[in-house]
């Protein structure tokens, strides 16, 4: 039943995602993409739990350690670069 609940959440999230993203204007597509890309680094949550709870030195632990490093790069670089880009978007008044 737990699994059905996750499927349910998945489907609802898909509809929500479509609603949210359709409203983003084309001029913001690059920040949207790098922003959602940073969000997809949330896989770091899974990697962290995996890394911290396995026997040190096992292949699983090593792989999840690397996964944490990779996902952290994804998250940190993604958010910073998105912020950098959005900081450049100015309207006329803000000159």
């Amino acid at each position, binding site marked *: 039943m737990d699994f059905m609940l996750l499927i349910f959440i998945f489907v609802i999230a898909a509809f929500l995602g479509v609603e949210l993203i359709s409203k983003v204007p084309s001029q*913001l*597509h690059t*920040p949207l993409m790098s922003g959602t890309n940073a969000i997809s680094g949330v896989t770091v949550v899974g*990697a962290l*739990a995996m890394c*911290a709870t396995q026997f040190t030195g096992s292949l699983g632990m090593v792989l999840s350690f*690397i996964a944490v490093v990779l996902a952290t790069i994804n998250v940190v670089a993604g958010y910073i670069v998105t912020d950098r880009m959005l900081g450049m978007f100015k309207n006329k008044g803000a000159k």
Partner: protein
Amino acid sequence: MYLNIAYMVACVLFIIGIKKLSKPKSARQGNMLSAVGMLIAVVAVFFDNDVVKSWDTSNWLQNGYLWIAIAIAIGSVIGVIWAKKVKMTKMPELVAILNGIGALASAFVGFSEFLKDNTGGNAVTAVSIGLAILIGAAAFTGSILAWGKLAEKIPGKAIVFRGQNALNALLILVAVASIVLFAIPSLDVQIKVIAVYVLCAISLIFGVTLVLPIGGGDMPVVISLINSLTGVAVAMVGFILSNTVLVVTGCLVGASGIILTLIMCKAMNRSIGNLLFSGFGSDKKTAGKGGSAGAEPKSISVEDAYVMLESASSVVFIPGYGMAVAQAQHAVKELSAKLEENGAEVSFAVHPVAGRMPGHMNVLLAEADIPYEQLKTMEEINPTMPTQDVAIVIGANDVVNPSAETDKSSPIYGMPIIKAHEARTVFVLKRGKGKGFSGIENELFSRQNALMIYGDAKATISSLAGEFKAE
């Protein structure tokens, strides 16, 4: 309990963050909120029961906190350096590579779960593990290949070979079979292990065969699609770990990537299937005949161009990937300021697929301090085209090719274009007389009202702006 509340807060912050991204004014704040959400989700893991337990271990090497702290530190340092160093023109490359390593992280988590007891637990978890590996690994090699094409480490051209579709179909079939074998509970563990290793290999290859046939100019679609796949891989990890925050955010990202993919496809008048399986740009030696075939494009000097610009009361810039290559955005800003001082109305027309990723041109123009009110979409600018005195095409080609409207034999027939040819005069800034990346003859160049200015776009624009100064 607290963990779930933290995850819920994180999800809400992600959703509000994406919502705020839909307006330039609130976008930056939205990105902040989503980063705060991420921080909450990450900190929450530190209070996960199993992680807390590792604190009590006598051997400090067994302490989970130690390892995750080291990993986060390494990742953060690399991430900050990359993000600070990247040039805005190189954004597509950075997004491609970040996407690739994010996808690899998901695949690794799936694989580590498999390593725990080599069975994957119940069938549902096993299928999730299989899909996380398949999608994550394919998105990884696909992203790296896309990065290679963008950075021109490998030829950007579409590479097609016979039997490509048959090969892809076979790869998918074997991948699905491996996942099924892995998920059947009664099967011998040895067979399952082999199935997973086969799956890993197939997935890595599939990412390559998926992206290989797609050419440089179709990169906006590929990046969007791979972005979407990475999101789905995250959701699969969520299914493996029964983690709601991963399922929700993975799905949001997946939806976002798919929508962008569809927008890009629509802007090129092509279906996803056509894009992935036909190898666009490979079979178009038979370029369109063109209206005024054979007419040699007229070229013009910078001085003459200046005279025309000086008397123009409305000017529209149409940037393309060439502007990014020439790093001409700041020169463009300078020229546009001069034109405005001179009393002309200046706007910028951005085609949805101009550049190498969705919205690429907008970011470059924003970097050059051009206010976003001046940036017009294709739909906004086209009705005003006949009243524009001068249209300046900078390194754009296919997106202004009138053959897309008139010539049924043209490979890009039916693609919506920016109607530069309807402006009173069109300047086309081009490096040389060669064709664009797609190899299609551009009918615009031989039109009566079109004037070519050959040379480096940045130098040309700078000297045009210089003429205004000299005045």
